[in-house]
């Protein structure tokens, strides 16, 4: 998936755990696509999300859209905030799709100690790993992981930066806008560098993060991710 615009309609499945902001990330993606003049359909499963259950949503973008969701083999991109949730949804991914996964493991059924065995699908070639949890923890705003990962996704979509930033402004409160915009831009930079390394072409032009007054708690800037290191595979 080099240039999403040639691949419309595009189906993105966002997966995570209750509390990680899956639904808000999906809403932001849908709003950005809408502002970019595209047709959008979004559907979500969130009945028990507040209780640490699984949460997922699908956002479909394109001109002629019918179904608000696709089944197995029908999703072009998975954006996952947690490892197991991402792996669980791999059957939904098209054979030529891509799974952009945050490296965080939270074992389902936390009553048992984490086992040292990985599900076999962890080595699926379609998965690309990102250190979203580590980077957002480092920046002392782990709650912005969803926007970091949305930034990662944004580098793959032909929705212009203006639409993204307008969507962020429309959906976020004043209090959380600056931090989340910062993490979104960080994710976008990390992913753009990643795409450039994979394709051997220069990174597409991505708007520089705006200079924003940072809340006192945000102490560290997210540094650019060296490409080809641990971010690319399972460590």
């Amino acid at each position, binding site marked *: 998936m080099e240039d999403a615009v040639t691949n419309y309609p595009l189906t993105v499945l966002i997966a995570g*755990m*209750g*509390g*990680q902001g899956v639904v808000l990330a999906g*809403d932001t993606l*849908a*709003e950005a696509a809408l502002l970019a003049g595209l047709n*959008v*359909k*979004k*559907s*979500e*499963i*969130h*009945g*028990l999300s*507040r*209780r*640490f*259950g*699984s949460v997922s949503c699908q956002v479909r973008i394109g001109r002629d859209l*019918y*179904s*608000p*969701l*696709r*089944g*197995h*083999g*029908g999703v072009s991109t998975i954006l996952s905030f947690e490892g*197991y*949730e991402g*792996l*669980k*949804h*791999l*059957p939904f991914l098209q054979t030529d799709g891509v799974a952009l996964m945050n*490296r*965080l*493991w*939270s*074992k*389902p*059924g*936390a*009553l048992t*100690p*984490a086992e*040292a*065995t*990985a*599900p*076999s*699908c*962890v080595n699926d070639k379609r998965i690309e790993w990102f250190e979203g949890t580590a980077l957002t923890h480092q920046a*002392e*705003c*782990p*709650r912005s992981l969803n926007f970091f990962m949305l930034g990662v996704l944004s580098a793959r979509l032909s929705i212009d930066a203006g639409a993204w930033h307008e969507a962020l402004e429309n959906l976020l409160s004043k209090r959380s806008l600056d931090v989340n915009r910062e993490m979104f831009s960080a994710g976008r930079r990390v992913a753009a560098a990643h795409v450039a390394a994979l394709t051997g072409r220069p990174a597409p032009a991505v708007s520089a993060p705006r200079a924003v007054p940072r809340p006192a*708690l945000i102490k560290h800037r997210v540094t650019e991710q060296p490409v080809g290191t641990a971010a690319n595979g399972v460590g």
Partner: protein
Amino acid sequence: MSRSRLLLSGNQAVARGAMEAGVMVATAYPGTPCTEILESLSTYSSVKAMWSTNEKVAYEVALGAAFAGARAMVSMKHVGLNVAADPLFSSVYTGINGGLVVVVGDDPSANSSQNEQDSRHYARAAKLPMLEASDSQEAYELMKHAFDMSERFDTPVLMRMTTRLCHSKTVVNIGEPPAVPPKATGFVRDFDKYVLLPRQAIQRHAIIENRLEALAEFSDDSAYNRMELRDRSLGIITSGVPYCYAREAFPNASVLKLAQTYPLPKDLIHKFAAEVERILIIEELDPFLEEQIKAMGIKVHGKEWIPRVGELTPERILHSVEKLSPQPQEKGDTTIAARAPRICAGCQYLGVYTAIARLGVRVTGDIGCYTLGSLEPWNAIDSVVCMGASIGTALGMEKALGEESHGKVLAIIGDGTLLHSGITSLMDLVYNQGHCTVLIMDNSTTAMTGLQGHPGNGTTAKGLAGPGVNIEKLVQAIGVEWIRVANPYDLEQTESILREALAHPGPSVVISRAPCLLLKPKTLVQQAHLKEEACTGCGECFKVGCVAIERQDLGGKIAPKINLDLCVGCTLCVQTCPEEALAPKAVTPELVEIRQWKMPLPITPLPY
């Protein structure tokens, strides 16, 4: 914001459509998938939006408003319509005055429900017209259509939704609110219409049958029932969200898309059948359309291919039809465990279930967050059926098992559920001299569906505060003589009160009271800390089942590891530790400040 092109969920679209159609009174009982309908309506100043005590009451309030000449609506989930079925059936007989639209949300795949019922059968059983939308734009338009239809034919109209429609967001081109605020036209006495004595009921029945014929003809001409002719070798008859799946799966097929699915547009269906070679009916759950169309003498394919169980997707439909045999439900990677929902860290239920697990009694459960007590590690609930069922089933068990069950049957129910439909069963328990104990867990809100108000806390849908029901006095007035209030954060006290209650001959009630932490978060003053050398790895603290208690291997013993991002300092785990290895420790104000920014998330070390 004055945008006219909005991304709305099906729920929001229904609310918007109703508001623009001039709905004046709207009632509901919260329940996934359609809780957000009333929540959206409550934001419009022109709508009197109310949470009701239960769905039957909600229906009756809306019906009364319609009698008085206002446009009214009532919304509920599928199992709620079972509760409201009594007034539903009879209101079809009385008819309405102002328009009345009944919105019901089915839950194919039972994402957050106790069954997977197909509420479309209600339309046929109760003899009222039914509409189904396939996306938010159509849901928005159909609400206006439904009110017009309701008034034109003097009948309530059923608007049937599904989780997929309720929770999907699609683009809606909205219109304007009514130019003048809606107003009721007034009630005019009409004995033969509104008073259902047997003689009147028989007369009204005849009117209903004629009305259904007229509605079928109306359906034939409805612009919302649409024939889309493309490739004639395959014709699909479908409605609701399955229309979208059908278009996705068979983009070239001809489609008859039905919005009015009861009574069916018979002429239109015959016309469509004459245009295409083969007909496939694509519908979720039961063969509701299929059976009726087969009864019209038309040869169709349907449920021999399309699954009856679970929600459809374009892929499931394609799979089923291509293989010409029913497919098992899609499953993800089965090597990865499902992520079960958990009770929040520090919730009062943790204390209650830890205590109950020590009692060794039969526990009949009810519907709410507390249903999760049926899971590991407590396994504290033995049956869950429907709203309010705990007390009745406990009484039945006790009567069947006789004296040996005395002191061994406990019913547990939340405050919201008690008021919804548990209170009548509690009366029954007293009246029939049962020997059960009822534990009322009062968290002062409807927690599971998202903190809606209810008569117990007195907060209305519009956010007004009221006095709230006094549960102790209510229970006392019913005739329960043994009533105690327990503090669920005191394990010993809770356990001993429960033991006392169970030992009491006759009905006894224990009220465990603490506000829901989502409603009123605990001020963080302390957190649990482990003294590693004192821990023997006995595992008592794990029996609390708190998400903040993770496991770690300390030199061969499995010890607790407190996740400080989650711990609220309730001390329940501290109380279970026989070695005093867990102790509360005061937190610094800086940590409190930082934690407001931290995502509460259980993070375990990398497994590989």
